[in-house]
């Protein structure tokens, strides 16, 4: 009986070595990716922007009470009407820059490198996604390029916020309606 118990303990002890190696491997990469959040009190909190870029209510909570999901509707305009962008019928680009469309707040205890991008194939009319301190002047820092792709991240200290700006360069020559998914995520810096 005793040899059996000893053998079991030996097996567990050997297995423990494997787990230690595994943990060391995990900690060496230090990846603690926090995937997109959509609530106002999540680790990466999203909230509708306070800038003129959101004056038409383009960014809004699906449910204002529970503040569960942040939605973006670029058709919104004056008096809750549905408008959208003017097509490039004259072969000139139409630029629309939404400044402070929504806010990202790092509510974790650590500095996070935040990225905002469109996974997969994004809309061709989306020129870039940029972040900057809320209300800051200037062009901010680009975190995604054409179509919302080629993402990079920017460090955001604990308790701090970024405003997110979307710049459109409408080169579509024909009317259409499109949709895409915007992803906000971070890794611990």
């Amino acid at each position, binding site marked *: 009986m005793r040899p059996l118990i000893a053998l079991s303990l030996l097996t567990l002890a050997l297995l*423990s070595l494997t787990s230690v190696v595994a943990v060391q491997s*995990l900690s060496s990469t230090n990846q603690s990716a926090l995937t997109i959040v959509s609530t106002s009190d*999540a680790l990466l909190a999203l909230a509708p922007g306070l800038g003129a870029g959101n004056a038409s209510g383009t960014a809004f909570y699906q449910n204002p009470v529970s503040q569960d999901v*942040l*939605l973006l509707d670029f058709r919104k305009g*004056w008096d809750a*009407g549905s*408008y959208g962008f003017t097509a490039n019928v004259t072969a000139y680009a139409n630029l*629309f820059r939404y400044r402070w469309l929504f806010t990202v707040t790092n509510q974790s205890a650590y500095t996070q490198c935040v990225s905002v991008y469109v996974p997969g194939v994004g809309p061709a009319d989306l020129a870039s996604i940029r972040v900057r301190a809320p209300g800051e002047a200037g062009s901010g820092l680009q975190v995604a390029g054409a179509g919302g792709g080629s993402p990079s991240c920017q460090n955001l200290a604990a308790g701090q916020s970024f405003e997110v700006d979307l710049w459109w360069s*409408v080169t579509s020559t024909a009317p259409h309606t499109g949709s895409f998914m915007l992803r906000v995520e971070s890794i611990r810096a």
Partner: protein
Amino acid sequence: MIRRLVALIMLGMATVGLLPWLQQAVAAYQAQVRLPADEQAVYQVLSTNGLVSCDVPTTIVLRRNLSRTDNFFRCTNNHGATVTLTWSALDAGGFISASGSDTLPANGTAACRSATLDAGNTADTRTVTFRGSTVADAGLYVQIHFTAQVTVQNGAGGLGGGCP
């Protein structure tokens, strides 16, 4: 006695060894947390009636050698905030040049603005580009382009006019 001691040490190693497993499992769970954010954004591209749209008369007719002729274009701001447009009208030949700055209130109504155009001294038909953009680097920045056909005709007297 020695056997008990060895067994105790092994038990300790096994327990300590299992704890990192638990930590690893928690870390892996955190990394895979997905909250319901996979909702899609919507956008629309329209031929007319955009968020900010401008148009000019389909055809603008000027009389040759007429020094100045008023014409107009109309812009509509459908955005929920005031947009200040700095606009200009240029053509490749440079015989028409006009510019100005206008504030479009956020009331969804069209604003009619006069553009004073200088006619050339030759009869010609050109495509003139009207270009507008917001002046400030804050809020919604809009830059738009719209075009008009401008025909310069021989004869006296001018056509065109200001806002209705």
